[in-house]
C-alpha cells in the first residue's frame, strides 16, 4: 500500500521493463544453438526441416530408380556377352560337325578340357540314348535352349551362377556352359556401392534439412519475438531485413510495411482522441464553471435552483461517459502495456474490500471476504486498472442488488492461473444476456432506472483483455458470479 503520509500525491515508480531484469515478458525466446536444435522436438515441427526431408526422400527414390535401371543394363550386357561367346562355340562345333562329321567333333572334344569352369566354355555331348560321349560337366539333361542355373544346385565346383546353352549336334545333344561370375561380382560391387551412396546421401539430406531448419528457425524466432513485442504495445519494433532478397525477407518487408501503417493509425487515433478530448472538454469546462457560477450567485442571494443542480448532474454524466470512452479506447490500444509491473492483486482486492466494506453496509448489504488478505498473487499488470475493475464489479453489485444481498470477494489459483471472483446473491443476469453485458452502452431493462453509462463492464473486459485474462459470468444460485482469470499461456504477453 502506498504510503501517502508525507506525499499527498503518490508518484508511481518509473516503469521497469529491462530485457536483463527478471521481469522479462513471457515468451521471449533466443535462437537455439544448432546442436541444441538437432536434438529438440522443435526440429520436427520446422517446416524447412520437413521440406528438406521431403526433397531428400524424392532424391533418394530417383537415385534408387536410376541405380536399378543401370544395374539392369549392366546385367543384360554381361549376359549378352556370355551368350554370344556360348553361341560362337556352338557355331564352331556345328560347322566342324557339318564339314568334318561327328567324329571330328568328338576328337576335338576329348582333347579339350571340359570340367573347370574358369573363364572358358565347358561342354558335354550326350548321345541319343542319354550316354555321355564327351565331357563330364552335367549330371542332368535340360531341354533345348538357354538356361541360367546356380552352380551349387548343378553340383559344379565353382560358385555363383552358370549360363547353359543346350542344342542339337547331329544325333547328339551338346550342352555348353560358361560361368557368370563376372556378372555376380558386378552385382555385389554395385549393391555395396549403392548402399554406401544411399546412406551417405541420406545423412547429408538429414543434416542439410536440419541446417536449413536451423537457419530459418533463427529468423522465424526473431520474427516471433518482434511480433510478440508489437502485440505487447511496442509498435516501433520492426523485423530485420537483409540484402539477400529471399522470401522471408520479402515477407518481413511486407509485415514491416503493415506495421508502419498500423503505427500511423494508432498514432493518429491517439492524436485524435487527445484532440477530441481537448476540443470537447474545453466547452464542457466552461459549462461547468457557468453552472457553478450561477449556483453560487443565486446561493449568495439565498435562492436555490433545483434545475441547476440537475444540469450539473447531466454535465457530470456527459463527462464521465466521455471519460470512460476515452479510457477504454486508450486501454484497447494497448498503450499501457509498456508500463506493466508485478501487481499483487490480493492486496488490490484487500484495499478495495476495506474501502467498500462500509459502503456496502450503508446500502444494507454484506461484504464477505473469503481470501486471506495476507496472501500474495502476483501478475504482470497495471495496478490502477485492476483496482478499477474490482471497484466496477463491486459497485455494479451494490447498485443492481436489493438490500440484504451478500457480496462475496474471493481469490485463488487454479493450475498456476491466478483468479479472483466477485459474486452476489442478487437477482442475477439471465444467461442469454450475459455476453451482451460486455457491449458498449448495453444496459439490462431492469437497470435502466439506476444511474450508470453501461460502460463499466466494457471497461472490465478491456482491462481483462489487456492482462490476458478471461471474464466469466456464471450463475451464483442465486445471483451473479463474475470470475476474472489470468491465463498462463497468453500469445500476447
Amino acid at each position, binding site marked *: 500500500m*502506498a504510503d*501517502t*503520509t*508525507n506525499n*499527498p*500525491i*503518490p*508518484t*508511481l515508480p*518509473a516503469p521497469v521493463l529491462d530485457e536483463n531484469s527478471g521481469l522479462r515478458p513471457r515468451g521471449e525466446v533466443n535462437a537455439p544453438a544448432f546442436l541444441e536444435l538437432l536434438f529438440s522436438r522443435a526440429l520436427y515441427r520446422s517446416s524447412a526441416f520437413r521440406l528438406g526431408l521431403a526433397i531428400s526422400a524424392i532424391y533418394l527414390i530417383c537415385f534408387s530408380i536410376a541405380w536399378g535401371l543401370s544395374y539392369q543394363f549392366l546385367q543384360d550386357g554381361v549376359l549378352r556377352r556370355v551368350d554370344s561367346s556360348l553361341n560362337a562355340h556352338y557355331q564352331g562345333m556345328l560347322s566342324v560337325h557339318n564339314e568334318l562329321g561327328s567324329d571330328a567333333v568328338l576328337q576335338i572334344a576329348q582333347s579339350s578340357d571340359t570340367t573347370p569352369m574358369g573363364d572358358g566354355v565347358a561342354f558335354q555331348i550326350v548321345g541319343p540314348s542319354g550316354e555321355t560321349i564327351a565331357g563330364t560337366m552335367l549330371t542332368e539333361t535340360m531341354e533345348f535352349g538357354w538356361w541360367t542355373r546356380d552352380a551349387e544346385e548343378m553340383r559344379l565346383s565353382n560358385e555363383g551362377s552358370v549360363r547353359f546353352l543346350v542344342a542339337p549336334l547331329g544325333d547328339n545333344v551338346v550342352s555348353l556352359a560358361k560361368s557368370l561370375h563376372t556378372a555376380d561380382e558386378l552385382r555385389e560391387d554395385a549393391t555395396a556401392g549403392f548402399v554406401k551412396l544411399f546412406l551417405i546421401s541420406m545423412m547429408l539430406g538429414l543434416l542439410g534439412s536440419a541446417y536449413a531448419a536451423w537457419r530459418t528457425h533463427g529468423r522465424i524466432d526473431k520474427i516471433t519475438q518482434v511480433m510478440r513485442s508489437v502485440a505487447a504495445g511496442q509498435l516501433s519494433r520492426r523485423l530485420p531485413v537483409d540484402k539477400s532478397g529471399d522470401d522471408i525477407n520479402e515477407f518481413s518487408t511486407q509485415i514491416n510495411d503493415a506495421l508502419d501503417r498500423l503505427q500511423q493509425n494508432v498514432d493518429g487515433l491517439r492524436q485524435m482522441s*487527445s484532440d477530441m*478530448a*481537448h476540443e470537447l*472538454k*474545453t466547452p*464542457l*469546462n*466552461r*459549462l*461547468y*464553471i*457557468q453552472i*457553478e*457560477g450561477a*449556483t453560487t450567485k443565486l446561493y449568495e442571494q439565498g435562492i436555490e435552483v433545483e434545475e441547476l443542480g440537475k444540469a450539473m448532474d447531466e*454535465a457530470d454524466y456527459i*463527462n*464521465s461517459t466521455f*471519460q470512460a470512452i*476515452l*479510457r477504454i479506447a*486508450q486501454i484497447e490500444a494497448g*498503450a*499501457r502495456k509498456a*508500463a506493466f509491473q508485478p501487481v499483487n492483486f490480493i492486496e488490490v482486492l484487500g*484495499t478495495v474490500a*476495506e*474501502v*467498500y466494506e*462500509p*459502503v456496502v453496509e*450503508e*446500502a444494507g448489504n454484506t461484504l464477505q471476504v473469503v481470501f486471506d488478505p495476507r496472501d500474495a498473487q502476483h501478475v504482470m499488470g*497495471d495496478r*490502477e*486498472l485492476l*483496482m*478499477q475493475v474490482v*471497484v466496477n464489479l463491486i*459497485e455494479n453489485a*451494490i*447498485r443492481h442488488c436489493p438490500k440484504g444481498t451478500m457480496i462475496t470477494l474471493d481469490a485463488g489459483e487454479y493450475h498456476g492461473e491466478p483468479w479472483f471472483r466477485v459474486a452476489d446473491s442478487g437477482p442475477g443476469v439471465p444467461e442469454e444476456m450475459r455476453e451482451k453485458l460486455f457491449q458498449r452502452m448495453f444496459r439490462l431493462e431492469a437497470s435502466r432506472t439506476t*444511474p*450508470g453509462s453501461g460502460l*463499466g463492464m466494457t471497461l472490465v473486459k478491456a482491462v481483462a483483455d489487456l492482462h490476458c485474462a478471461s471474464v466469466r459470468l456464471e450463475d451464483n444460485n442465486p445471483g451473479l458470479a463474475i470470475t476474472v482469470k489470468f491465463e498462463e499461456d497468453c500469445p500476447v504477453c
Partner: protein
Amino acid sequence: VHILLVEDDLESAKYAAKGFTEAGHVVDVLHDGKEGMVQCLQTEYDVLVVDRMLPGMDGLSMVKALRVSGNKTPVIFLTAVSGVDDRVAGLEAGGDDYLTKPFAFSELLARVNALGRRPAATVEVTLLQVGDLQLDLLQRVARRGDTEIELQPREFLLLEVLMRNEGRVVSRTMLLEQVWDFHFDPKTSVVETHISRLRSKIDKPFDSQLLHTVRNLGYSLHVPR
C-alpha cells in the same frame, strides 16, 4: 497567495481569475507557454496553474524548463487528457498536482489553497492539533481531550489529510486521490460513507463539531467559528 494562471482558453481563464480574486488571491493570467516561462523567471509566485496544452510552449516543457532552472514554485497541471500515463508524465516533469478538465472552480481553489499554504517541508510535524483534537503521527494515536479514539489505518490517514488542511476545503476528489489512491470517480458514495464513519468517532460523542461538510465543495476540519 500570488498565483500565475497559464491557460489558453480565454473564457475559463477569465472566470478562474475572477474566482481567485474573489477568494482573496492575487492572480496574473497568461495564455502562452513561453510568456509564462519568462514571467516565472521575473516574478516570484506562490502557485502556478498551468494548462498542459498551450501555444508557444506546452505546459509540460514549460515546467520542466522551470525546474531545470531551479525554480521550485508548486505547480498544478490542468489537462483535458486523464490517463495514468499523462498524470505520471505531469508529476515526473515536476508538477505537484494534476487536475483533469472539466473541473469545478471550487476544486481548483481547494487545491491551490492546499499547495499555496503548504508548510515548509523542512520541519517534520509529528503532532497535528485542531481544537482539542490531537493526532500523534509517531504513536499513531488520535485523542480528543482526554479520550483516546480508535481509528482504522485508513481512517487515520483520512483524518490526517483533513487536519493537515485545517480550515481549508478538501474536495471529494482530493480525498479519493490522497487517502485511497483512487484516480477515477466511483459511482457510489465512498467518501461520504467514510466521512460519516469518521464523524461518528471524532464528533458525535463530543459537544462541538469539528468536521464540517461544505456544500457542493467537500469537507473542512476546523474549530467552530
